[in-house]
């Protein structure tokens, strides 16, 4: 029998960490354009985002198996899902967009992208928080 709880716990950390790291790299590269490695930072953020999106598929699959297909739920479980699904959709969309556009971003495109990266990071962090609550506090058991 596959230990989905352990697998999910292990896999979720990759998209969370990589997305936050990618967002940080993007912001540093934009704010400190004159840095000699600003261009490399943008490349790092691109690959981190792509790997985060791939890893999120594994995290989602293991999560579905763990919850026996319950995609909503109540309490912390429900809140975890309320943040997970928009975060997952946004993460995939951002990764696809970034892989298509790469460095050819307009000023407006870059601003929009950074705003959406911040939003995705917030959603992923909130989903991670409620996931942690499920594990550590029994998920809303009063």
């Amino acid at each position, binding site marked *: 029998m596959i230990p989905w709880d352990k697998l999910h716990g292990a896999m979720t950390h990759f998209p969370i960490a990589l997305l936050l790291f990618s967002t940080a790299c993007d912001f540093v590269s934009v704010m400190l354009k004159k840095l000699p490695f600003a261009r490399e930072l943008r490349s790092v953020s691109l690959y981190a985002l792509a790997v985060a999106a791939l890893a999120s598929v594994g995290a989602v699959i293991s999560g579905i198996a763990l919850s026996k297909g*319950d995609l909503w*739920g109540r309490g912390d479980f429900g809140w975890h899902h309320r943040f997970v699904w928009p975060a997952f959709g946004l993460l*995939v969309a951002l990764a696809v967009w970034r892989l*298509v556009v790469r460095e050819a971003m307009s000023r407006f495109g870059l601003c*929009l992208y950074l705003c959406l990266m911040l939003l995705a990071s917030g959603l992923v962090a909130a989903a991670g928080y409620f996931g942690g609550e499920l*594990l*550590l506090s029994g998920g809303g058991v009063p």
Partner: protein
Amino acid sequence: MMTPLEIKGATAAVIISVLTLVGTFTAGGIYRNRYATERQPGTKPLAAETLAVKGRSYFLQSCAHCHGRDADGGEDAPSLLKLQISGTHMALVIQSGIKGEMPSFTKKYNEQDVAALVAYLKTLH
């Protein structure tokens, strides 16, 4: 404004994202239905009342000494009356336990037993 390449990228991003989410929800739904069907192979599902009675006996056996005989809480464990979590989540907590607070019952109770415990807990709403 956005360049044609960015618009093309945005279109691809929206399509792939929507397809991924639709695929995920479809797969989740299929898994959930299959799990519900396979949970009791060859046997008719127990009536909710029978299941809850069975669950009550498991509860008294393994949970009552911490959560209280009437599930209204003990010194070290919370009340389980009017839980605001789903049945799946209850099952998950029973099977996985809570780190440092509650043991896992996955070895003691199989999935049917856990379903019985969940059915009992749901009667406490």
